[in-house]
């Protein structure tokens, strides 16, 4: 039963990753990111229950606190401050992106197949999905032009890595996990500062302005 629940959570994670890939609005992206964090922490609790690993409860709690409450709140404050709450990304071709996404899913399933056959964990079937969500987040970062969606893509990439760690080895050691959590939090703060810098210099959050070289003076 827990095996099925884990598979369902993995599928939900993949579904949310695809929803993020096709979402144009920044506000909805943040909601989706929070939902992804919630599914992730639920999955960790289920794995903890199934394998009786007490440290996974702590890791689920950290995930919940950080990815469902703290980071979405931070991002909310950020887009309010930057006044991009209703920003819409217009220049992405969603059907093509989704098609590429499906190819990535097939690729990662095939890549993960030999690895997961070697693994003995209860969650081995979900390794392919974890890999797929990492690749989908990367794809999202590539296709977006605005800065905030790119950062959300980066954070969801971290979600995918965390899920891969849980499904391959029942989670990382506590110290590593705490370190990563802190990194992500501090990273988001620094990204926030960067956003303001970018906007001050270019009057826009469009990353493509960064590609042009400018004379000093």
């Amino acid at each position, binding site marked *: 039963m827990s*095996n*099925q*629940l884990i*598979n*369902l959570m*993995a*599928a*939900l994670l*993949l*579904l949310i990753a*695809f929803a993020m890939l*096709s979402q144009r609005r920044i506000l909805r992206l943040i909601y989706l990111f929070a939902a992804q964090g919630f599914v992730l922490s639920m999955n960790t609790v289920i794995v903890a229950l199934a394998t009786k690993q007490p440290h996974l409860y702590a890791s689920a709690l950290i995930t919940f606190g950080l990815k469902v409450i703290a980071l979405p709140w931070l991002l909310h404050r950020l887009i309010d401050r930057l006044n991009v709450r209703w920003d819409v990304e217009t220049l992405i071709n*969603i*059907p093509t992106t*989704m*098609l590429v*996404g*499906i190819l990535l*899913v*097939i690729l990662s*399933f095939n890549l993960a197949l030999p690895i997961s056959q070697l693994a003995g964990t209860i969650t081995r*079937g979900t390794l*392919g999905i974890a890999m797929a969500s990492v690749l989908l987040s990367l794809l999202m970062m590539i296709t977006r032009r605005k800065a905030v969606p790119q950062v959300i893509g980066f954070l969801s990439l971290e979600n995918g890595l965390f899920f891969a760690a849980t499904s391959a080895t029942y989670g990382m050691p506590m110290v590593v996990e705490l370190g990563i959590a802190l990194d992500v939090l501090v990273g988001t703060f620094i990204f926030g500062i960067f956003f303001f810098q970018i906007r001050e210099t270019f009057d826009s959050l469009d990353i493509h302005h960064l590609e042009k070289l400018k004379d000093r003076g």
Partner: protein
Amino acid sequence: MSLGFVASQLFQTLLSVFLAPLMLGWVNQCRAWLQNRSGPGLLQPYSVLRKLFLKDAVLAHNASWLFRLTPYVVFGCMVLAVSIVPVLATDLPFSPAADVIALVGLFALARVFMALAAMDVGTAFGSLGARREMLVASLAEPALLMVFFTPALISQSTALTTIVETLAHKQLTLYPSLAFAAAAFVMLLLAENARVPVDNPATHLELTMIHEAMILEYSARHLALMEWAQALKLMTYTAIGIALFVPWGIAEAGYWAGLPLAIVALLAKLLAAGAALAVLEMVSAKMRIFRVPEFLGMAFLFAVLGMLTRILLGSAG
């Protein structure tokens, strides 16, 4: 074929046919509540149908036999479609005659007749609505087939009764691939039934309407049949959704004692589905017609993803 089988089939079909306007009334009532209106009441669709049946029909001068035949064909298709879907029990003598692929075909037949009749009279709105409907349909139909293939892969059969039998009465298993299929199905339900993100059922604004534009020339009993068929279509789609994704509570074949429970379960699920549909319609804005292909493309891709998950995860999917 025993008498019990025939009784079961007749009862289920008649129940669906006469419950369909009530379902529509419930959705409208929920929408009204969400908009802070008091609403027309649950039985309003029945009154509308009665009023329309009592009136005299008016036909355009150049309306051909096709125009007059279409309401009966469309209504017949929808009754046939709803009698294939098991709503209360899985013993339907009719179901071996038509599987899910035939079901999609039935919807297509009704749609073709409707589009032809809309263009028959030759008004601008009719052909405009017909063309838009065909645009939506040509994208929704393959996606609907893909949605059906995922549960068909799980149960190794395309007959709806076998699918429901496998999903509801075998050992309880969660299929992650069905999550994708369900997401795609909800999107298709909205598109195919002319609900809000794709079409607005409450408007006659010429620039946006799709379904309403097609039946604009109909009156009296023809219009009544068309509207009833539309309500039946919504009912059929809801019943398919229930059968594929939340089939629990449905009675087993030949198990009559399970019927009261099945009726209660069905009513509860229909109430929940209607309320959910109203909420979905309230929180989404109608999209531009050129965004519809993107919306339906996503539904198609979700359905394909469901099938892929099923194939790649193997028995766990």
